[in-house]
C-alpha cells in the first residue's frame, strides 16, 4: 500500500466525466509525475488528492484512511502549489510566509523557525522584506513553493510548477524540488513539460482520455515502447542495402543521406553494423544512438489508432 492510494476513482461535474476508473498508488518520498495533455484531468486529480473535491465514485486514501474523512489532517500535512504563483503580491516575502504559517495553525515561533529553513531552501533569505510583486519570476515561483512548505508538509503537490518559465528558471525550480524531496517530502507533480518530469520524477502516471493509461518508472515506460532505441548512421557512399541485408535490420528509415535504425538492442546492432562497414571498406561519417524520450513515449502511448506499437502492460 502506498502513501496515497486511489482506487476506482471517478469524478464528474454534472454529466461531464473528468476522470474514470483511476487507480494509483503514490509511495512515500516519491517524486511522482502525472502527465497528460491539457484538459486530461490532471488538476482535477490533484484536487481529489488534497481532498478539495470529493470523488463521484471510488476512494482516495492517505496513509490508509479515506481522505474525505481526514480533510483537516490532509490540509495540515499537504502543501500545494498551483500553476500560477499563488501568494499576495502586496505582502512581503516574510508577511506571506507568516500569513500562510498562521493559516496552517503554526505559532509565531514555529513560523519563524520554519521560515528561516524554507527561505534557505528556496534561496530567498536575502529578500524576505521585499514585496512579493517586486521579485523576479523565478523568485516568485520559489516564494510560492516556500508558502506551500512553511508548515513542513509531508506531501507537496505541485500543479505545473514550471509552466511559463524560461529554461533557466525551470532548472532552478527543478533543483529546488529535488532539494525538497531530499528532505523526505513526497512530491506529486503534474506537467505537460515532459523533460521536466523526466528529469525529476522516479515514477510517472500517464493520464489520457479520463483514465490513467500507464503508471511506472521512466524505464518501465520505455520498455513499453517498441522502437526502443534509434541508431542514426551515415556512411560516405550513402548506400545502406548491404548493411540492412547482413545485419538483418527490419525497422529502418532513410532520412536524406542518413539511415535510422530502430532496434531493441542498440549496442548489439551497432556492433554488427560496424563489422559490416569494416568488411566492406566503407567510410563511417556519423553514428549516434538515441533513446526515446518521455515525450516520444507519451506521444506513442496516447496516439490514437497506433496501439500496435505499444506493448501490453
Amino acid at each position, binding site marked *: 500500500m502506498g502513501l496515497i492510494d486511489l482506487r476506482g476513482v471517478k469524478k464528474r461535474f454534472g454529466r461531464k466525466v473528468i476522470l474514470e476508473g483511476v487507480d494509483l498508488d503514490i509511495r512515500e518520498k516519491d517524486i511522482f509525475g502525472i502527465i497528460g495533455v491539457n484538459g486530461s484531468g490532471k488538476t482535477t486529480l490533484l484536487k481529489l488528492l*488534497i481532498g*478539495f473535491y470529493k470523488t463521484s465514485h471510488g476512494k482516495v486514501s492517505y496513509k490508509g484512511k479515506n481522505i474525505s474523512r481526514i480533510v*483537516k489532517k490532509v*490540509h*495540515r500535512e*499537504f502543501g*500545494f*502549489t*498551483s500553476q*500560477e*504563483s*499563488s*501568494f*499576495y503580491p*502586496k*505582502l512581503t516575502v516574510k*508577511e506571506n510566509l*507568516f*500569513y*500562510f504559517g*498562521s*493559516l*496552517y*495553525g503554526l*505559532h509565531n515561533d514555529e513560523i519563524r523557525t520554519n521560515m528561516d529553513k524554507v527561505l534557505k531552501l528556496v534561496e530567498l533569505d536575502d529578500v524576505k522584506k521585499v514585496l512579493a510583486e517586486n521579485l523576479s519570476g523565478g523568485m516568485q515561483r520559489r516564494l510560492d513553493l516556500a*508558502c*506551500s512548505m512553511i508548515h513542513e508538509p509531508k506531501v507537496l503537490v505541485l500543479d505545473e510548477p514550471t509552466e511559463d518559465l524560461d529554461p533557466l528558471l525551470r532548472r532552478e525550480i527543478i533543483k529546488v524540488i529535488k532539494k525538497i524531496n531530499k528532505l523526505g517530502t513526497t512530491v506529486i507533480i503534474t506537467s505537460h513539460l515532459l523533460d521536466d518530469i523526466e528529469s525529476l520524477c522516479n515514477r510517472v502516471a500517464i493520464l489520457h482520455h479520463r483514465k490513467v493509461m500507464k503508471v511506472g518508472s521512466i524505464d518501465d515506460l520505455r520498455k513499453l515502447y517498441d522502437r526502443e532505441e534509434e541508431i542514426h548512421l551515415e556512411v560516405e557512399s550513402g548506400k545502406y542495402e548491404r548493411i540492412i541485408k547482413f545485419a538483418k535490420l527490419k525497422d529502418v528509415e532513410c532520412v536524406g543521406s542518413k539511415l535510422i535504425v530502430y532496434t531493441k538492442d542498440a549496442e548489439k546492432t551497432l556492433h554488427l553494423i560496424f563489422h559490416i562497414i569494416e568488411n566492406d571498406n566503407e567510410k563511417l561519417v556519423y553514428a549516434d544512438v538515441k533513446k526515446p524520450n518521455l515525450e516520444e513515449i507519451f506521444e506513442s502511448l496516447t496516439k490514437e489508432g497506433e496501439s500496435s506499437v505499444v506493448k501490453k502492460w
Partner: protein
Amino acid sequence: MVKAFAIIKKNLKLITRTKSSALIVVLGPLLLILLIGAAFNTANIYGIRVGTYSESYSSLTNAVIDELHKKRFSTVKIESVDVCIESIEQGIVHVCAIFPPDLSVKDGGDIVFYVDNSRLNLVYIVLDTLSSIVGTKSEELSTQLTKTLIDALDTADKEITDKQSLLDALASDASITDKKLDALRSVWNEVDLESDNGSSFKVLENEVSKLPGSNESKDTVAGLIEKVKRELKKKDESLIASSTAKQKTLNELTNLKQVVEGNIGYIASLDESAKKVSQEIKNVKTTSISKIVSPLKTRIEPITKNKTHLNYVFPTLVVLIIMFVSMMLASTLEIKEKTAKVYFKNFITPTSDALFIFSNFVTNLIIIVLQLAVLFGVALYFFKDQILSVVTNIIIIPLIIATVFILLGMVLGNVFRSEETSTLAVISLGFVFLFFSSTILPIESLPGVIGKIATFNPFFVGERLLNQVLLFQSPLQPLLPSLYILGGYIVGLIILTVVTKKIAKRRM
C-alpha cells in the same frame, strides 16, 4: 483567533498598500462630508430662477416680484407665456409665474405657475416659497382693506356710544315734558269757568223785594243789581270765551302729549337700536385684522428647531455612504480574493470557511468604522451637541446598518464572478434601495404593496433610525422594531453568505 487576526491583518495591508484604496478609505468620506457640509450648511435657497410674465405689470405684481428677490430668487421678465414655458424646458428658468394684467386687489386674479414636474424636489421648494410670498402679499392687501372696515366699525361704535347720553337726555326731557303736560292739563281741568248768575240774581231780587223799605230804595238796589247783572253778563261772556280757550288749550295739550309720548317711543326705539348696534359691534369678538383676513391660518412648524439643510441631509448621507461603501468594499474584497491566484491556496489550509467569512467581515467593518469616524469627526464641527447627546446610539446604529450592507456586499461578491459584474450589481441594488426609500420620492406615494415592501428596505429602515437618533435624539427603546428588522436581515444574510461562499468554492 490567531488565524482570524492574520487574515484581517493581511486584508488591511492589502487595502492600505493599494494607494487608490487607501485614498478612498480615508479621504473619500472626508472630502464628501466637507463638500456636502459646505454646500448644505444653510437654510436658504440659492440660484432658483423664476421667469415672470404679465401683459401689464401692476404695482402689486412688482411687489410680489420684489418679495421673490428678497427670498434670494433670481427673476427674469419674459416676453410671453410660451417663451417662459420654453425657458423651463431649456433649463433657463426653474418656474414660470404668470400674473394677470394689472393685478390688483380690487379685481383679483389668478397667478399661474408653470413648473417642470420632472424636478419634483425643486418644484416643491419653489411652489412652497412662491405660494407663501403670494399668500403673504395677498394677506397684506386684505389686511389693509379689512383694517379700513374695522376702523369704520370702531368709529361707528364710538359715535353711538358717545351719542347715547344725548339720546338718554332726550328721552328724559321728553318724559319730563310729558309729565309737565299732564300736570298742566290737570291744572287746567281744575279751572272752573262755568257761571250760573241768573238764579243768584233771582234769589237776590226776591230777597230785595222782601226787604222793608221804600220802593225807591228797592228800585235803586234793583237798578244796582241790574247793573251788576249786566256787568256779570259781560264777565260771563268773557268766561265763556275763556272756557272755550281752556278747552282748546286742553285739546292742544292732549295733542302735544300724544306727540311727546310718540317722541318718547321713538327715542326709546332709537336708544334701543343704538344700544343694539353698539352691542352688535361689541359682539364682534374677533376684531383682530389678521384673524379676519385668514381666520384659519396654517403654519408649518419644524419639530426640530434651528436646523440647516445639512442637519436633514446628514443622516441620509451617512446611511448612503455606509450602504455604497459597505457593499462596494465587501463585494470587491470577496471578488478580489476569489479571483486571486492565491485564493485556492487559502482553502487548502486547515482553516474553516466561517473563519474566512468572519475575518473578511471584520476587515470591512474596521474600514467602515474608520470612515464613519472620519465622517462623524468632521460632523462634530457642524453639530457637536446633536452628536454628543446620543453618542451611544450613534455608535450602535451605524454599526448595525453597516453589518447589513457588508453582508449583502459579501453575498454579491460570492454570487458574481467578476469585479465588473459585482460592482454593477452593487450599484443597481444601491439605486433600487435609494429609489424605494423616501430620499427621492416619499415612500407613502408608492402604490400599496410596493409601498409596504419598501418600508422593509434596509436603506429606508437605516435612514429612519439615524434620522430619529440624530434629529430627535431618540433613545433606543422606541427604535427596537426597526432594529429587529435589521437584525432579521443580519441573520438571513449570514446564512446566505455561508451558502454563497460554499457555492463559490464549488465553482473553483
